[in-house]
């Protein structure tokens, strides 16, 4: 999927949505991340100009929080929960299985820009451990042997249907 062109007007609209308040900088960055799947440099400059804070402060925020990325993320972000409950139920091995299946390491994006593989620290669904999310879909009770089939649903196909049976 092609990377969206950064539009200054779009970023200005996000600033307006949050009243241009410095206190909402994190929220504005959240919206930029959602819009472009990363935080483009141009957006940082526009935010700086519109909100009236130094570029450095926004760059600091954009690199401090895990949700933000300075590089484009894949269309599907695979987040393997590595919280305590999931860890005890084999999350590290599930993570390895995803990495093997996609041929990338944690934090990387596949060449075609389809998948990004990430770790997330507890999604609060500990009763369903081990948990993997693909964008907003939550998959519970995942084991290494279920990984290939799980990923296949999103691979190559059109938008995978949301909320299919997990096990």
């Amino acid at each position, binding site marked *: 999927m092609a990377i969206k062109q950064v539009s200054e007007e779009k970023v200005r609209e996000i600033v307006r949505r949050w009243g241009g308040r410095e206190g909402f900088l994190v929220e504005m960055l959240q919206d930029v991340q959602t819009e472009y799947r990363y935080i483009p440099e141009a957006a940082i400059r526009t935010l700086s100009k519109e909100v009236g804070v130094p570029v450095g402060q926004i760059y600091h925020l954009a690199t401090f929080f895990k949700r933000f990325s300075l590089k484009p993320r894949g269309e599907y972000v695979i987040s393997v929960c590595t919280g*305590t409950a999931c*860890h005890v139920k084999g999350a590290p091995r599930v993570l390895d299985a995803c990495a093997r299946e996609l041929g990338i390491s944690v934090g990387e994006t596949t060449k075609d820009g389809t998948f990004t593989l990430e770790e997330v620290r507890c999604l609060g669904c500990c009763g369903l451990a081990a948990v993997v999310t693909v964008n907003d879909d939550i998959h519970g009770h995942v084991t290494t042997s279920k990984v290939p089939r799980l990923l296949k649903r999103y691979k190559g196909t059109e938008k995978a249907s949301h909320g299919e049976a997990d096990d």
Partner: protein
Amino acid sequence: MPYRLHLMVCAGTGCVSNHALELRDALSAELAKRGLGKEIEVVTTGCNGFCGVGPILLVQPDGIFYQKVQVKDVPLLVEEHLVKGRPVKSLMFTPPEAKEPVPKMRDIPFFGKQMLVALRNRGMIDPEKIEDYIARGGYQALAKALTTMTPKQIIEEIKASGLRGRGGGGFPTGIKWETCVHAHSDDGVRYLVCNADEGDPGAFMDRSIIEGDPHSVIEGMVIGAYAIGAHQGYIYVRHEYPLALRRFTIALDQAREYGLLGKDILGTGFDFDIEVHRGAGAFVCGESTALMASIEGRVGEPRAKYIHTVEVGLYNKPTVLNNVETFANVPVIIERGAKWFAAIGTEHSKGTKVFSLAGRVKNTGLVEVPMGLSLRELIFDIGGGIADDGEFKAVQTGGPSGGFIPEDLLDLPVDYEKLYEAGSMMGSGGVVVMDETSCMVDVARFFVDFLQSESCGKCTPCREGIKALHGILSRICDGKGSEADLAMLEELCSVIADTSLCALGGSAPNPVLTSIRYFRSEYEAHIQGKCPAGVCRALITFRINDKCTGCHLCFKACPTSAVLGEPKQMHTIIQEKCIKCGACYDVCKFDAVTKE
């Protein structure tokens, strides 16, 4: 005409991911098809807590509890139970020790031993309807507080109740509020903040409260704001909780519409509103000063707290910061009185506490119990014991800041002081159970790894010290540790605990110290080249024994073609090719793959 029956479909995150919403739609469609739509109402509720057996369906007023209900079960369920009045046994829950399924929710041990205060509306209301909350007595406490009590009386009531912060610190809430009122503010501005940046891995009570009963948090916040004289409030919620965010926003709009939030609340002239801020994935933002920095649009780095945030907090104004569960308790205390609340619990820990039971326990989920219940009751009576009939090894409380508690301390009553004495802490209430398949060194390393990546890097002991701990623990897990490493770990831990800037670093040594204190033999085994639990990869070997039937599953599962063998013949593993991923172990149905 009132409905004859209500079908309460659990729509917490756990059940939704198990397709509860599809179940709801199927139920509505089936009822409409049979012309029962006017007699029976389908309601989506918040989390019931028993996440391991979702999706959950509760038929009221009978109290019949169904579990793992699939869309395909709907026609049978409607026909048998709702039309013919014969509850469906096959969909009921059978507790691990029982032979027969238990029809009623309150008879299931998981629910029977609980006492609901913060979760009082659990499974009873639609969290997206303020009318449901009001029908259950919601906002009465607010009316009582605003019209019949002075701010001082409210603070006295909260102090007398003995309510302590549920986010982990355990600071008395009433005293916090009182200190804030007495703190100097030039223009009289004070802020009230709700901490919903629930970051402890293994804890999800805050998420569940907001998803299931958002108005209880709003009501508690408005009462708190009135008590301290704040007109602006904030809630800081993790972005990883989209459902909680959505429901809280809906609840805010409804409360404003009903005159329970915003200008001139309930016509008393008191103004207060709440703004939502989404966290962007930083564990340290659960720390008070880091959280406030983040609300101001700066990075979430803690500052030294010579002056507490109740005096100089958000935008340099006196600020009260309380956790979600703490606020959810407030309306109940105002309504039923401090005496009632203080009668529950132990001498210094009053009321109830919500815990999330997870890990290697049969019944995973969210439970609320009186303070002072023993860990044994929590894990074995409510939790149903160890999953797959394994053997209990340790329980970890308090997230990465807490510690491990071994079997001989299982009768410890759960309260702030007792857990602290054992080297752990209450934390926000995560309880992760471990059995013989969990390696204590590996789990200690896991927490240290977590804290290493979550350390904000501002102060040296935390940034460098935790990294050094991680290096030593990794060395031990790789079988390259020595006796001297243990002494070094202990020394490092004491320096980190004494010199870190905030609680993240200050409590980081807890998992390491308690694992050494109670499970020293496991460390020693690693140093001698063995991982007793079979977790640490460098120290284990996978083999296939003669139980192998040649089903060929492991052959197909192996990513490196390390498994050799023809179908229906016994298979073997080529050790040189094996990367110890455990895929063969996971797929084997005959216990033929062993870990040594």
